[in-house]
């Protein structure tokens, strides 16, 4: 691009500067907790020793705290347990529904779609309070089953959306071609349909998993001491007395989100290549 005048160049640079500031605004708050989680002092700011890169200013004590605390370990296990089963339910039901929704014969597909997406739109506090009232009547509060069902339904919209999107680009002629070449229904499913749709299913499953893993409000309302997840533990930690152990946990969460991002990006590229 050519910039003719001095003022135009100035405008361009100030525009780029503005964008740079916004990018920093986006990313710095997430990165800042990583060095702070290695702080040797129980402060939430950089000590002088940290700023001068003195090794004495850094330590692993908050990570030791984290992994030697039975309560943190128990809640982390709970989070994985609930998220795992919630993901399985959400992914299987969501994929089936997306297969139905993407067919042109589907009656009332728009209405049904808006019902299926509703857990995403309704504010979390309303979902949580509603579940609290209703699940209590069924004896599902303070049970793992209740927590899993609640998290599963919160994750289903993501599965429906991603799998429907994957199917919208699906070329049904490929199935006809397979049939005309004499492939069985099983072969067509495993060799044609699955490889093309699987990336969508996996991204949906990842979404469902992270939805459950990050969720705190619903468990606060319907879960008991037994079902306490790591996010609930963090929540009470932040509310009552914020200890740097939380920053260590937050750093672990950051690693999970990096893993998610990379996996999804790889999946996206793969499905683009196949197209």
């Amino acid at each position, binding site marked *: 691009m050519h910039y003719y005048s001095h003022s135009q160049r100035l405008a361009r640079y100030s525009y780029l500067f503005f964008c740079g500031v916004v990018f920093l605004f986006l990313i710095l708050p997430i990165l800042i907790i990583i060095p702070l989680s290695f702080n040797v002092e129980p402060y939430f700011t*950089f000590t002088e020793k940290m700023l001068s890169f003195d090794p004495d200013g850094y330590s692993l004590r908050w990570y030791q705290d984290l992994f030697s605390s039975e309560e943190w370990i128990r809640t982390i296990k709970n989070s994985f347990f609930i998220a795992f089963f919630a993901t399985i339910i959400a992914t299987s039901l969501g994929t089936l*529904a997306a297969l139905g929704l993407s067919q042109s014969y589907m009656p009332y597909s728009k209405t049904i779609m808006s019902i299926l997406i509703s857990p995403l739109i309704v*504010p979390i506090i309303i979902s949580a309070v509603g579940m609290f*009232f*209703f699940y209590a009547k069924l004896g599902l509060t303070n049970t793992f089953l209740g927590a899993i069902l609640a998290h599963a339904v919160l994750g289903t919209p993501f599965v*429906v959306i991603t799998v429907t999107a994957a199917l919208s680009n699906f070329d049904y002629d490929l199935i006809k071609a397979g049939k005309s070449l004499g492939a069985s229904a099983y072969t067509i499913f495993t060799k044609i349909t699955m490889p093309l749709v699987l990336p969508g299913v996996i991204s949906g499953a990842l979404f469902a998993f992270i939805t459950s893993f990050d969720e705190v409000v619903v468990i606060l309302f319907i879960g008991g001491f037994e079902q306490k997840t790591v996010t609930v533990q*963090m929540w009470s930690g932040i509310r009552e007395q914020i200890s740097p152990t939380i920053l260590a946990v937050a750093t672990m969460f950051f690693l999970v989100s990096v893993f998610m991002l990379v996996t999804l990006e790889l999946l996206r590229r793969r499905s683009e290549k196949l197209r």
Partner: protein
Amino acid sequence: MLDTVTLKKDLQRSEKKLKIRAFLLVLPLLVFVCFTFLTPVFSLMFQSVENSEIPTLLPNTVQEIADWSGQEAPSEAVFAALITDLTAAKKQNQIGKLARRINYNLSGARSALKKVARRLDQLTPPYKEKVIKLNKKWGDVKIWRIIQRENSVITSSYYVAAMDMQYNIKTDDVEFKSEDERIYLSLFVKTLLISLAVTLLCLMLGYPVAYLLAELPLKYSNLLMILVLLPFWSSLLVRTTSWIVILQSQGVLNDLFIFFGITEEGDRIRMAYNMTGTIIAMTHILLPFTILPLYSVMKGIPKSYMQAASSLGGRWLYSFVRVYMPQTIPGISAGALLVFILSIGYYITPALIGGQSGQLISNLIAYHIQQSLNWGLGAALSTLLLASILLLYWIYNKMVGIDKLKF
């Protein structure tokens, strides 16, 4: 010869089969969502009009008081009915529930009721004077008016309270409370204003960035996209924690200000645990939701339009405003509506970083469910919030379409 009628019927039959097959695939999830999600939300809405306590626990009183004039304390017959009902309620251990219910409409009614309930064995007819002697509230018309008014299993009284209204003590008409007593309406307005502020901030920060991402060659924009997607994928709780760490008085930003001499050690700026904290953290969390739809719309606008505009002599800014921006309106509306819908219902971030002044309507709902235990009021507030969200969702669906919702 081809029989067109049978052919048509065959076609219809096979289409019906396909329809049923497609529907059967959706059915399990539909049932699951109805059972685990929609029914709970409806049961919450039902809670906002539910009023079983007074008609079921005070059946005789409700009947006796039906044609009471409402000018002075009711007759002995009503008092006798009250004693009968309270004796029955006490046997079922329901006095607390009833007292709490009446107390929602009249503070102080709880102790009035409990006092009588405690002395039930010692009371002998005639009751009227003895009961009034126990607690003056029984000589007043207020408590009786509530019992008379709330005689049905459905009540609108929680909505009256949720809209900052009250019943006129003389006429029973619904009227607004005096302006300094209107907490819920002002909180609704505040929630809308904060959501609007967050939406505008997101657009102001997001639009230029989305334009840069769309304009840059893919190898650079993909790299910069990570900076947008990483926060998008990070946990909400983690991001709120980060902002507490950054914004609090002893936090990173204040230390930085002092280091650069912007503020003094003595007057550190309060940015966390107030409305500023809520707005900053919410803007950060919701910014990717504006950038992503804007980016995908801008990516689809051919560069030749701007080139054509400038070759026709339009200055850059003029061409940008007149040619480019109108084409990005779908992205603006998608991003802005999504952010607005999400921020109206925000709970976690205001609860953790909002302090007193940064609380939104969701936080008040949680307060009524968990602490004040006025479930009816909490449910009424939830229903009002849900209604406004659904309205916005409907607009979003009309303007953008839910099928455009992608991740």
